[in-house]
């Protein structure tokens, strides 16, 4: 985990939570706010190390729970679980393929809220399971599926802009140099 990676993950988590708390366009349009942290977690789990997964789970989860009536730490646990599962199975996922990104984004974005709701069922203030909640869950899953390829493209751009790119190898070989001499 290098410094740029850490900074960009923290910054992306901050932006994701900032979007969720201040942008209400999607909420007003479809009646549910989409969650961007699972999409981010998919990218981090498939492309980065386990400390990065842990960092995103702790920081993103705490930030999200702080603006919510959720018990503090519940989103951290859900994100961490999703991230660890994806990271463990990362060799089986074709992470460069668009359909794989969309599918893992859909699964992660449905798993995280499901885990949170399941955890809230065991508190003194359980969430009522209604058709409306099911619809919101679906919106979150679809929103996450759309956001995941965007996260991959964003981080690819950041990596291209801020990391050292090795120059393409030259075709020139000293051993194959044709030396022309006077005959």
């Amino acid at each position: 985990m290098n410094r740029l990676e850490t900074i960009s993950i923290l910054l992306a988590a901050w932006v994701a939570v900032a979007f969720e708390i201040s942008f209400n366009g999607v909420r007003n349009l479809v009646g549910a706010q989409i969650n961007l942290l699972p999409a981010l977690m998919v990218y981090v789990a498939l492309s980065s190390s386990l400390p990065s997964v842990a960092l995103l789970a702790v920081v993103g989860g705490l930030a999200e729970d702080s603006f919510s009536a959720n018990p503090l730490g519940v989103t951290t646990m859900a994100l961490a679980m999703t991230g660890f599962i994806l990271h463990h199975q990362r060799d089986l996922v074709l992470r460069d393929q668009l359909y794989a990104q969309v599918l893992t984004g859909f699964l992660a974005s449905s798993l995280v809220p499901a885990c949170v709701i399941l955890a809230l069922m065991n508190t003194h203030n359980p969430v009522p399971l209604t058709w409306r909640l099911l619809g919101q869950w679906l919106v979150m899953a679809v929103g996450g599926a759309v956001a995941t390829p965007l996260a991959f493209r964003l981080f690819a751009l950041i990596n291209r802009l801020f990391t050292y790119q090795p120059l393409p190898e030259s075709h020139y070989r000293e051993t194959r140099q044709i030396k022309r001499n006077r005959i």
Partner: protein
Amino acid sequence: MLRKPQYIIAALVALVGLTFLSLPESLTGRVKLAVTGLFLPLFGLTESAQSAVRRAGNAVVPREDLVRELEQLRAEKQKLEFTLAQAQAAARENDQLRKQAGYPARAPWKLKPARVIARDPANWWRTIFVDVGSRDGVRADMPVVTPDGLVGRIASVGSTRAQVFLLGDQNCRVAALVKETAENGVIMPYAADPAIVTLTYLSRGSPVKGGQTIVTSGLELKPGNEVLTSGLGGVFPKDIRIGEVVDVRSVGFGLYQEARVKLAVNLNTLDQVWVVAQ
């Protein structure tokens, strides 16, 4: 399989999560408010962006429209001054009558304006954050209103921010009464629609003999009846508008009635609210 360092990281994250989950509620409230401090630049940025948009909008409004609006506002102001004079006279009369009857005088509301700075990212809760806190004299359980009606109550307070439980959230239950029938009930969440709440534990009014109906107030609940805060419970002052009855049904095997109430305030478009410091 997971290797040893991976076990350690997973255990550490689980430990952090469980530690936060097991903290006492007062402490988690403080931690939450501290973490929201990291988003202060965002709130500042949002405010600056909004004021910039407002300024840009003001710059393009034609002078004719402004003058016309000014004239309308002047006329409205004069009308409101008459209404205010009448209301002040009525309030004076009310004070005198209360004094004669030996009732304690009603304390006037102290209203603090507040701006909505954030919304709950979780879809299953209904809370907002406002930009006033303990520094402005805001305390937990203070009611939050708009000119249209009740919004909710203050849940937790930081120095410059406060979290508000909105009407329809599971943590915001309000003692309410129907204005026309004086029936008392409790406002509870209605899960299927965020613009509607349930007014429950209303007296049943079911027939005991053919054609006879027991209704405590002598009136029946009807759609369109106005629902206000009852002042019972001590959190919300009396007579703040909540909404109006949509329909009524008998529940609990006919033990009591329940009414669906359409909220007077559109909670999705909240921008400016008022905290009532009683």
